[in-house]
C-alpha cells in the first residue's frame, strides 16, 4: 500500500513530532546526575596499580601451585601430551570433528573398548547419580536430523537409554556444541519441542558445549552450559580406568587436542614456560590450575575406601 502525502502535511507532521520529543534535560536531572556521579568509585591510577599488584601475586601463587602439581601428573596425562588428535589435519577447532568423535567416545559399543565408562561419567556429572553399573544405552548418534515439531536442523550428539534400577523411565542426552560459531536463530529453542517429544517422559539432559561454557543465547533454561575444559575434567575423572582399553591413546590425543586447540590451555611448551618466565601471559594459568585440581581430586576420590 502506498499513500500520496502532501508536502504541507509532512511539514506539519515534522513540526508536531518535534513537540513530542523530550526537550533538553532538566537542570534538576543534571544536578542530581552530577551528585550521584561524584559518589561513584573511580578506576583511578592508584586503584589500577593496587589491583595490578594483587593480580601479580595471585598469578604467582597460582603458578607455584601449577609447578607443584605438574610434577605429580601421570606421564600419560593429556596435559603432558604434545600431540593433538586433529591439529595435523587442520581440524583442531572443527566442530563436526569434535562432535562425531564425542559421539563415538560416548558410545558404549564403540571399538575403543571403554564400554559405558565415559557416558556414565557424563551422566553422573549431569544427573548427580552414580549409574555406571546400571546403565544401558542405545548406540550414540551424531549429526541427528531433526525434522518435525516445527524444527529443522541437526543435533550434534544424541544418546538414549535406561537405568536398570527399575525406578525411573530412562534418559535422553542431547549435546549441541559450538566451537567458534554462534547458534543459529532460535536454534536451541527449535530443538526443544522435538527433544521433549522424543524424551516422552524420560529424564532429558541437554548440554550446550562451548570452549568457555557460555550460556546459550536462546532456548530454555534446561540447556546446561558446559565448557570443553569441564568435559575434559569429567572424562579425566575416569581416565585411569581406561588405560588398558584399545582406544586409550586415541582418547589421550583427543583430550590433549581439546585442551590445546579448543581451550587454548597450552601448547605443552607454554606450560613449561610458566616454570621459567613469571611474566608470561600466553597461557591462562587459572584454567591450568583448575584442570590440575580435578586430576588431584579424582585421585583422592579413587583412593577413598
Amino acid at each position, binding site marked *: 500500500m502506498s499513500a500520496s502525502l502532501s508536502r504541507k502535511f509532512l511539514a506539519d507532521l515534522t513540526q508536531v513530532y518535534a513537540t513530542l520529543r523530550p526537550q533538553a534535560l532538566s537542570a534538576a536531572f543534571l544536578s542530581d546526575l552530577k551528585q550521584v556521579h561524584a559518589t561513584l*568509585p573511580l578506576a583511578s591510577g592508584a586503584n*589500577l596499580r593496587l589491583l595490578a599488584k594483587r593480580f601479580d*601475586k595471585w598469578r604467582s601463587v597460582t603458578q607455584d601451585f601449577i609447578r607443584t602439581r605438574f610434577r605429580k601428573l601421570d606421564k600419560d596425562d593429556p596435559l603432558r601430551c604434545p600431540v593433538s588428535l586433529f591439529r595435523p589435519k587442520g581440524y583442531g577447532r572443527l566442530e563436526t570433528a569434535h562432535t562425531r568423535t564425542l559421539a563415538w567416545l560416548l558410545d558404549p559399543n564403540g571399538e575403543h573398548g571403554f564400554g559405558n565408562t565415559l557416558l556414565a561419567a557424563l551422566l553422573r556429572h549431569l544427573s548427580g547419580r552414580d549409574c555406571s553399573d546400571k546403565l544401558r544405552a542405545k548406540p550414540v548418534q551424531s549429526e541427528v536430523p531433526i525434522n518435525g515439531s516445527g524444527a529443522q536442523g541437526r543435533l550434534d550428539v544424541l544418546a538414549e537409554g535406561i537405568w536398570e534400577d527399575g525406578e525411573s523411565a530412562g534418559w535422553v542426552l542431547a549435546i549441541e556444541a559450538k566451537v567458534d560459531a554462534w547458534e543459529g536463530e532460535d536454534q536451541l529453542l527449535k530443538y526443544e519441542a522435538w527433544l521433549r517429544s522424543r524424551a516422552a517422559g524420560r529424564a532429558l539432559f541437554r548440554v550446550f558445549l562451548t570452549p*568457555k561454557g557460555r550460556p546459550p543465547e536462546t532456548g530454555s533454561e534446561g540447556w546446561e552450559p558446559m565448557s570443553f575444559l569441564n568435559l575434559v575434567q569429567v572424562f579425566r575423572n575416569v581416565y585411569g580406568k581406561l588405560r588398558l582399553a584399545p582406544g586409550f591413546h586415541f582418547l589421550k590425543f583427543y583430550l590433549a587436542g581439546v585442551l590445546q586447540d579448543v581451550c587454548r590451555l597450552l601448547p605443552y611448551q607454554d606450560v613449561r614456560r610458566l616454570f621459567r618466565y613469571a611474566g608470561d601471559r600466553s597461557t591462562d594459568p*587459572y584454567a591450568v590450575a583448575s584442570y590440575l585440581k580435578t586430576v588431584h581430586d579424582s585421585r583422592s576420590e579413587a583412593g577413598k575406601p
Partner: protein
Amino acid sequence: MTPLGKPLVFYLKYVAEMNRLYGDPEYYGGEPDLTGLDDAGQVRDMARIVGDTASEQVADFLELCGRGIEKHFTSLGIARLAGKKTRAFIKNHWAWSTELQVPSVATGEFWCGVWITAPPEVRISLANDACGVVVPWLWSMGGRKGEDAIWEVVGSWADSRAGEGLVSDSGTVALARIPVTPQPSKSFDVDRDQLIAAVMETVARIRAKQMKAIARLVAGLKETDEN
C-alpha cells in the same frame, strides 16, 4: 592525543585475571578460585568497576572505528551496509561488524569488523611492550572456501587466515594485527587516535575493485553450491 582509557589497557594487560573476576562466572567455568588473592572481596569490587569502565571504553573505541569503516565503504559508491551492531553487543563481545553488500553482485555479501583482544584469548606472541591487539577482519559464509575467496583478493597484504592464531572462526581473514602499546611501557596510556588511524589505513586498502572482486567470488561459491 585521546587516551584509549587506562581501565581498558589494564584489562588487556590482565585478561586472564579480569575475565575471571569480571566475566560472567557461567561463561568462565563457574566461580573463580581466589586462592592467593589478597583482599579478594575488595579486589572483586574494584575489578567490577574497572571492567564496566573498560567495556564502555571498548564501545567508544570500536564505535569510532565502525563509523570510519562505514564512511569508507559508503564513499566507494558501490556498497550497501546492513546489520548494524548495537552498543550493548559491542560491550559484550568487544567487537564491531557490519555486513557489506554490493547491489550489483547479488548474494555476494560479506562482513567487515574490528575486535580488540589479548593473549591468552588469542594464541599469538605480542610485540615487545604491547599488551593487546586490534584486529580488523573480513568474513564470508562458506567456511574455508569463503576464506579462500577473501584471501585471493587481500592475501598479498593481509595478516593471516583462520586457525593461524589470531582469528579462529572459519571464513575469517585477519587484515592486520595492530599492537596496543602503552607509552611509557609500564603505564596504562595508549593513544586511541593512532589506533583508529591504523585501523582505517588497513581498511582503506579495500577499494571498490577489491570489494567487487570479493563479492563476485563469494557469490560464485554460492552458485557452485546450488549447482
